[in-house]
Every structure is written in structure tokens, then in C-alpha cells.
């Protein structure tokens, strides 16, 4: 495996380092097979499957209210579907919803804003317009972004998104 590729086990290690035990998820084509399924088999995680992504924004907020950290896993299409919940629950509600978002169809090595895929192209501008911090994770060297991003989200009680640019293996 080339050093620049993403490893699911590395992402899982970083998530655990950040103190995450609850994962709220709706399957994302980018991260389902190697990442979500592995997490679902891992006894260190409690996985809450949702029927629609906006539920997850609120479940994560409820978990925060109860004193727990959590991670919401979804595809970028689900994030776009959840914009009102992101607005009212995560941003205005000052809840540190941490999202791991698969950028299905993004071309390798191409910045999301330069993608030919419309939905991928608009994801970062949408997050910017909402004031939601985001970090692109596409290569093994990007792993170091994950824990500080989660820590900052909880310290500031603000949401953030880790955008997964390619399928982790």
C-alpha cells in the first residue's frame, strides 16, 4: 500500500485517541466497507445507526449534553440534507458535533472546490458559509489533523467536519 493512501486502522486509532466511544452513522460509500464495518465490529465503540443524517446531528448533541464525545459518519450528500439541523442544533445550539464526511466521487489529488462533481465542489463553501471548520483528510500525513480538530470542537463547543477525500483501506 502506498504511503499516501489512507488506512482505516489509522483513522480508528485517531478517533479512539480523541476519546470517542459513540459513533452515529448512516453508511457512506467512501467509508462503509473498511471503516464503518470495522468500527461496528469493535467492542470499544457503540454504534448508533440512524435512518436520516439529521437525526445524528441531534443524537450527537444529546450525547454531548450527557457528557459524552461522539462522531457522526455520513456521506457529503447527507451533510447537505442536514443543513437545517446543522444550523439550528450544531451552530446556533453551540454543540460540538464532529462529523466524518465521505466525499464520494472526488477526484484523487483534486481540491474539493475544483471537483467536477457539483456536490463535492460546494461542500467546503457551504461549510464556510455556516462557519463550520473543516479539514480534508486524503493521505496518511493528514491523520495528524484529526485529534486536534476534535479537541478544538469540544473545547469551543463548535461543530467541525473531517472530509475524507478517498476510500480508506
Amino acid at each position, binding site marked *: 500500500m502506498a504511503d499516501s493512501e489512507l488506512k482505516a486502522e489509522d483513522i480508528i486509532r485517531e478517533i479512539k485517541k480523541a476519546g470517542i466511544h*459513540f459513533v452515529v452513522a448512516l453508511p457512506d460509500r467512501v467509508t462503509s466497507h473498511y471503516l464503518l464495518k470495522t468500527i461496528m465490529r469493535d467492542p470499544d465503540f*457503540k454504534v*448508533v*445507526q*440512524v*435512518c*436520516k443524517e*439529521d*437525526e*445524528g*446531528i*441531534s*443524537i*450527537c*448533541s*444529546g*450525547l*454531548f*449534553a*450527557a*457528557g*459524552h464525545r*461522539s462522531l457522526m459518519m455520513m456521506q457529503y450528500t447527507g451533510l447537505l440534507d442536514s443543513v*437545517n*439541523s446543522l*444550523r*439550528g*442544533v*450544531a451552530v*446556533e*445550539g*453551540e*454543540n460540538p458535533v464532529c462529523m466524518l464526511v465521505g466525499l464520494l466521487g472526488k477526484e484523487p489529488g483534486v481540491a474539493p472546490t475544483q471537483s467536477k462533481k457539483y456536490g463535492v465542489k460546494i461542500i467546503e463553501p457551504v461549510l464556510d458559509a455556516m462557519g463550520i471548520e473543516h479539514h480534508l483528510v486524503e493521505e496518511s500525513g493528514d491523520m495528524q489533523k484529526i485529534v486536534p480538530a476534535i479537541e478544538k470542537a469540544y473545547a469551543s463547543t463548535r461543530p467541525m467536519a473531517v472530509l475524507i477525500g478517498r476510500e480508506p483501506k
Partner: protein
Amino acid sequence: MMQRDECLKVFKRHRKDEIVVAVYMAAQEMTHIMPNDLNYTFTGAMGQGSSHALGIALGRPDKRVVVFDGDGSLLMNLGSLVTIANAAPKNYIHCLCENGTYETNGSVPIPRAGQIRFVDLAKAAGYPKTYEFSNLWDWDYELDNILKEDGPIFVDLKVEPGEAYPEDFRRLYSIEYRDKFREALKKS
């Protein structure tokens, strides 16, 4: 048909240390009828009450979580019935204040008002126990048992508006009160 505020007053008499999540008109009334640091009204977007309550219930399996949801709200998040049944929190009680309208938004009727069997939707989603109440006496009589049974439990309360209470949306979504809730829950 019961008055919603009277339902909350009955609940107040039975309440011990449960966490109560409420949305819209039930939330407005709750802040007057039973103020409590373990009240949670910070749901942020319509339809999300049941989901916030699930997060809290999963995070604190040692505490009973009762949510007073609205029928218009639940229709916006019907999938949450399946999500909740799948997560199967034993400490979760989902009360629906069914008044057939979007009361906060001008009392426009919900689609198929009065013709939806919400308990059937909950049962089909996988809730192991459901109740339906249209008079206060039955609600009062069963409530102690409901608060002890393993959930998730779905309770359909057939209600109409009662007394008018002052509305304060800033209070409902206040970060200060949300943080007070977090602190109170940590200590309880």
C-alpha cells in the same frame, strides 16, 4: 381529549428525577409548570426532540428520559422511531402530544390529522410497548407503571391546548440553560 398543560401537571406529580425533553408548546408550558434543571428544551430544529432525547438516554442509561414530542414534529422525523427502536434504550419514554396541528405555526392541521394511528407506527417500528390516552384519569393511573417499565415506550396523548402560557423561544434555546442542564446532569 385532554388539555396538554393538564397532562404535564399530572406528570409533575409523578416525576422524581427523570430527565424531560420537550418541544415547542409542550416545552413552553413545561418551563412554567415544572421548572427543573433536568428539563431539556434545546432542540434547535423542528422534529429533532426525539433524537436529542435518544442521545441523552444512551449517554445516561441510569436515568429515565421522557420526551414530550409533537405530532407535527414527529412527522418530520418519522425514521427516528426506527432508529430509537433499533437502539432499544430501556430508559426511553416517548410521549406524543397529538393535537392534530402545527400549533406553533398558526395551528394549521397536520396532514391526515386525526387519521394517523401513531401507536401503530411506533409498534411497526419496533417499540415493544405502546399506550394511548385520551383522558387524564387513565394517564394518571398508568403513569407510575410507565415510568418503571423497560422501554422504549411510546405514549400517544390525545391533547388540545389548555391555558395559554407566555412564549419565550430565547429561553427554550438558551445556551446558558443548556449548560446548566449539563452541570445538573453531571451531578445527578
